[in-house]
């Protein structure tokens, strides 16, 4: 099996001519674990303020989330249901902290969904023999994919038990923790090493810390397995014009955030360098 069957990714959805946040009410806030919450956002008033592009959503796409008077940053859609969309936010810095403090009834701005999500999912890609490998908050990106590929094996890694995501949402998943406080002790990449050796996996989708993804991509490459990974880069416009999210000449906001293993192999910065808000190159992790 060659990487060819995922080698021709579809072009990103054509941008609409407006890119303005639409203010929507938070319908429900769920605690996911010690440091993460999910905001479930009502799409009810989205009709009065057209601009969202959700009809063509594919798992892996993201929205730009605006908190007035503060900032606007990218978050994957972790849920998309009838009348509601969800983002799952891991508390890192001031912006994610503010999001985690939001309550039902408050409003935030959304524009998108933007970017190229996972592709060939559920059509040409194998179902039962696919693996979805998430680390930490990468689970937010992968969750809608896991829902569309119920036959695939979902493998989640976390530092410890209190950092796990969606254990109830995906009961059959394989869990790894760094400290062994839940599931298997170790890294989810160990699962992949075994699965590859057993010939039990034919396609891999991943999102998580970049060193983990780099290892997954490397393993798949060695095994000749098709693979897709969703990467994070600092974003400003989210619509391909400012250049801030560049990763070796690819704009992560429109040509990504999901890239194939083949593409990532030609991106020397992957796993190594990203850019800060000034555009300066800094090491990953």
């Amino acid at each position, binding site marked *: 099996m060659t990487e060819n069957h995922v080698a021709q990714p579809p072009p990103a959805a054509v*941008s609409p*001519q*407006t*890119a*303005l*946040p639409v*203010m929507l009410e938070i319908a429900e806030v769920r605690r996911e674990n010690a440091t993460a919450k999910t905001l479930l956002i009502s799409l009810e*008033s989205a009709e009065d*303020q057209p601009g969202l592009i959700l009809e063509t959503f594919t798992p892996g796409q993201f929205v*730009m989330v*605006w908190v*007035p*008077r*503060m*900032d*606007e*940053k990218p978050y994957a859609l972790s849920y998309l249901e009838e009348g509601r969309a969800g983002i799952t936010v891991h508390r890192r810095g001031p912006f994610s902290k503010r999001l985690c403090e939001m309550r039902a009834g408050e*409003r935030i*701005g959304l524009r998108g969904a933007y970017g190229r999500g996972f592709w060939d999912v559920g059509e040409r890609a194998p179902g039962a023999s696919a693996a979805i490998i998430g680390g930490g908050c990468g689970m937010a990106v992968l969750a809608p994919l896991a829902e569309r590929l119920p036959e695939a094996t979902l493998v989640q890694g976390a530092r410890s038990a209190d950092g796990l995501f969606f254990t109830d949402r995906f009961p059959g998943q394989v869990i790894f923790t760094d400290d062994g406080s839940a599931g298997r002790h170790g890294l989810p990449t160990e699962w992949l090493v075994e699965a590859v050796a057993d010939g039990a996996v034919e396609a891999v989708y991943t999102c998580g810390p970049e060193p983990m993804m780099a290892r997954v991509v490397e393993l798949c490459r060695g095994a000749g397995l098709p693979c897709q990974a969703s990467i994070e880069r600092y974003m*400003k*416009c989210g*619509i*391909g*014009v*400012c*250049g*801030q999210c*560049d990763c*070796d*000449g690819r*704009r992560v906001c429109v040509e990504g955030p999901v890239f194939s293993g083949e593409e990532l192999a030609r991106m020397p910065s992957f796993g190594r360098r990203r*850019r800060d*808000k*000034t*555009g*300066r*190159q800094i090491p990953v992790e």
Partner: protein
Amino acid sequence: MSTPDATGPNLSVNLCGIKLGNPTVLASGALGMTRALIQRVARSGAGAATIKSVTVRPRQGHNNPTVIAYEAGMLNAVGYSNPGADEAGREFADIDRLSIPVLASVVGEDAGEFAAAAERLMPCGFAGLEIPLSCPHTPGYGTLAGHGTPEATEQITRAVRAVTDRPLFVKLSPNVPGISELALAAIEGGADGICAVNTLGPGMIINVEAREPVLGFKMGGVSGPALRPVAVRCVYDVATALRRHGCEAPIIGIGGISTGRHALEMMMAGASAVGVGTAVYSRGIEVFGKITQELRQLCRRLSINSLDEARGAALQ
């Protein structure tokens, strides 16, 4: 690259010795943050490219949202985020190895900073240099710092002129009562050409649900279709003034160009080449090849054999 297409009109342009295969130039601020993206712009068919403006020291710029688009154009208030001249010097080292000429863009709070940034960057091999005196949304810079007066224009241009022999373009604002005076002041200060124009306004879009301006800096420069007629008139005014003074300095016409027809319109107003920024959003990164192809067909249909025939055709 600058060889005319055997089967079509000659679209090559010579900008003070800088040779372009076609008149499309990536405008400063769109994509030009990294060498790799400029390389992609080159592959997508641009005649030349401009880097995003660089200051001596690193800048974080304004908070997001920094770029928004509404139905008639784009508003941005990026706020000159950049890694500073030293880091940019590393990013763009040996930039003359690219297949197209690349222009540097530098800004500062005063003439000395403009010159210092230019001095640091020019050894990278830039084909030329642009100095925007016209940003409408960054305190300390551009029109918010009074750089848009004839006096400041001449003074800053002179300071930068002193540190480089490469073709020097001064980028002007459309938000002034008399853009021609500024162009003449730039030429007086030693500029080789004019870039017209930077963004319009500034403008503001308020989200009524949030009761708050959308941009992090509240207001930002307007670009894209909304700007185009104003930009064309500015180029027309500048070209008219330069002609009247017997000055042959070329103009890079910038503002809302997204088709070959727009490019030809801008050239008929007096531009030698056209900058393209916002259209990277509306037509994709392939916009440079698309514009060039459309321009070629249009020139063929109108029996225009070379852009020299079109340039300034609408001037009196």
